[in-house]
């Protein structure tokens, strides 16, 4: 019999009941909540007169609607009354049911997928869910983590379980070493470019290979974060020394004997050598260049040294039409050089790229340089209050401000523009976020997905440039 994959192990360890109809009851260790997808779930609990099953499994924070300026005003600083109601409702619900919430004025507040790992609320081997598709981020710790809808948020609150169908196993292996200036973001964009936005549908993806093993936890989180952009609800990386080192000493992490017992278990969280995957995709790390998305889907990416594609060369009629539609929306010409795309704004932040290492990379590029005068705005939004404090302790805030970038307060911000941070119609943005869908960052806005280093380089030049030229 073949060995088990990491996903098989996590599934088996959380399986409560396999039903005859093929569905299974899976136990959930950690449930993260934010203000957008939870109000209807709490309302459902109340209507059915149900209580949360296990209070201490839940951790909440407002992130999507929070402003990134004037935070000393607290909730009163939220100008949009509808946004304010949503943040207030989360607070009331958590207070009513006794759920721990890092409120807007708490230094531990931040993007839900940044604070989980930061607090050690994300531990290897856990099942983690949240009403947010980027919950796949937590798979970087050898967790089984995925996004759920609001009905399932209610289901987890009420039962601590989910009814699931087992997914298929996919291994995405990135061999060899990454070149200088090439980051986790470039790796994941290259993977999505290769397998497509539906390439991972129905699969749990494990990212492995030397290039992944050499990445920091921040880099691994960026990659798992965007597994959903390849269609896979779940992205994972095996536990190793890097994982355990990151988790050690965090507020929710175990200590003493419990730590030793936990580490012993965590060391088993990798695919067995003889495990069989339903699908294997391999890339060579040395071939991956800094990536830039040119279109309206995360699979529409090109090397920074490349060009916007020519729809006339696409044989598949549905794909050709997709390219034509994207070029029209993005206001780009076929065959245009990526480095000729002029920018209006730069956004460094989001659950994909707002952790300390991301900010260090961006700061190292802008240090001693100035943002291009042609830009309307370049902003840095740290992922949490603690990331912000850390960056300030390292002097990164000053580097950004000296270069002409705005230094903001933590939240989801311009990744999806539910707060006041958004693109104007037709504006091009170099963004370290995860989705370049039409209208995502603002009505008529044009998003280009890049790494923090590439966004920083673009801020200096006013258009895309190969960051590797600035690093020499």
């Amino acid at each position, binding site marked *: 019999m073949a060995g088990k994959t990491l996903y098989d192990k996590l599934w088996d360890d959380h399986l*409560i009941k396999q039903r005859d109809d093929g569905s299974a009851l899976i136990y959930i260790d950690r449930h993260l909540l934010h203000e957008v997808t939870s109000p209807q779930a709490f309302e459902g609990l109340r209507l*059915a007169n149900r209580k949360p099953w296990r209070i201490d499994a839940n951790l909440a924070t407002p992130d999507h609607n929070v402003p990134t300026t004037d935070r000393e005003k607290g909730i009163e600083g939220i100008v949009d009354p509808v946004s304010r*109601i949503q943040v207030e409702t989360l607070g009331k619900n958590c207070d009513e049911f006794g759920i*721990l919430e890092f409120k807007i004025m708490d230094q531990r507040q931040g993007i839900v997928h940044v604070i989980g790992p930061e607090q050690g609320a994300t531990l290897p081997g856990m099942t983690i869910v949240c009403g947010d*598709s980027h919950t796949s981020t937590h798979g970087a710790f050898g967790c089984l983590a995925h996004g759920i809808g609001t009905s399932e948020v209610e289901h987890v609150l*009420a039962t601590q379980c989910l009814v699931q169908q087992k997914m298929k196993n996919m291994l995405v292996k990135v061999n060899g070493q990454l070149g200088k200036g090439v980051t986790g973001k470039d790796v994941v964009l290259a993977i999505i470019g290769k397998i497509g936005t539906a390439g991972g549908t129905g699969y749990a993806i494990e990212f492995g290979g030397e290039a992944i093993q050499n990445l920091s936890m921040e880099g691994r989180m960026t990659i798992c974060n965007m597994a959903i952009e390849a269609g896979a609800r779940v992205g994972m990386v095996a536990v190793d020394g890097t994982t355990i080192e990151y988790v050690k000493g965090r507020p929710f*992490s175990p200590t003493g004997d419990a730590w030793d017992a936990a580490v012993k278990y965590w060391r088993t969280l990798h695919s067995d050598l003889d495990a069989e995957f339903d699908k294997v995709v391999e890339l060579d790390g040395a071939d991956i260049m800094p990536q830039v998305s040119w279109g309206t889907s995360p699979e529409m990416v090109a090397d920074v040294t490349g060009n916007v594609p020519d729809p006339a060369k696409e044989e598949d009629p549905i794909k050709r039409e*997709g390219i034509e539609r994207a070029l029209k929306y993005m206001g780009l010409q076929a065959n245009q050089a990526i480095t000729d795309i002029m920018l209006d704004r730069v956004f460094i932040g989001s659950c994909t790229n707002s952790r300390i290492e991301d900010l260090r990379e961006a700061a190292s590029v802008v240090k001693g340089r100035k943002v291009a005068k042609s830009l309307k705005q370049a902003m840095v939004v740290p992922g949490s209050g603690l990331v912000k404090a850390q960056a300030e302790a390292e002097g990164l805030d000053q580097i950004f401000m000296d270069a002409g970038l705005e230094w903001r307060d933590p939240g989801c911000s311009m990744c999806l523009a539910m707060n006041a941070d958004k693109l104007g119609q037709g504006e091009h943005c170099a963004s370290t976020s995860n989705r370049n869908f039409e209208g995502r960052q603002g009505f008529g806005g044009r998003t280009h997905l890049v790494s923090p280093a590439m966004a920083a380089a673009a801020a200096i030049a006013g258009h895309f440039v190969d960051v590797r030229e600035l690093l020499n």
Partner: protein
Amino acid sequence: MRAFTQHQGLVAPMDRSNVDTDMIIPKQFLKSIKRTGFGPNLFDELRYLDEGKPDQDSSQRPLNPDFVLNQPRYKGASVLLARSNFGCGSSREHAPWALDDYGFRVIIAPSFADIFYNNCFKNGLLPIVLEEKIVDQLFQEAEASEGYKLTVDLEAKTVVTPSGESFGFDVDDFRRHCLLHGLDDIGVTLEDAELIKSYEDQRRQTAPWLFGAGQ
């Protein structure tokens, strides 16, 4: 939840692949704390020419005449015919809420994104996967004949065209059972409360670090 057994309805063909949930319901409408009222903003950026805002009377807004749902022949459609990877992107359940509130009961496509597919079943909405060539055929028929309706039978797992041609589809037994009977799946899970408790007790022994709040 509303049960789904059979449905016959007018078909609207939306000829575009990778329709994401941002497109189905843009973010400014996610600020509602209710489950209803999203219908007027379904496909907001495709459907209207201006930028939509929450709490606005959408009946006064300029319509995009090229968008399929704005064509008079598709008024009252309850079956959405779509292309591959429908519902990709965000996990927002507001997407099926908006489709449901608009009046859709069935969505047919060659493939769906996983989270969206799952969310549909929680809301009495039936997503049906049919082979690409069958979907192509349905697109041609729906566009060729005005008033084109399909009959969907969840019990029999069939989609039947006006000419009587029948296509079978697959759906997993648990989801089908819940939908056919309009079951509250939290109630179904709680029937296993004792099993959940005993699993939890055992985990408290073997993995105590998973329990208890942080410091």
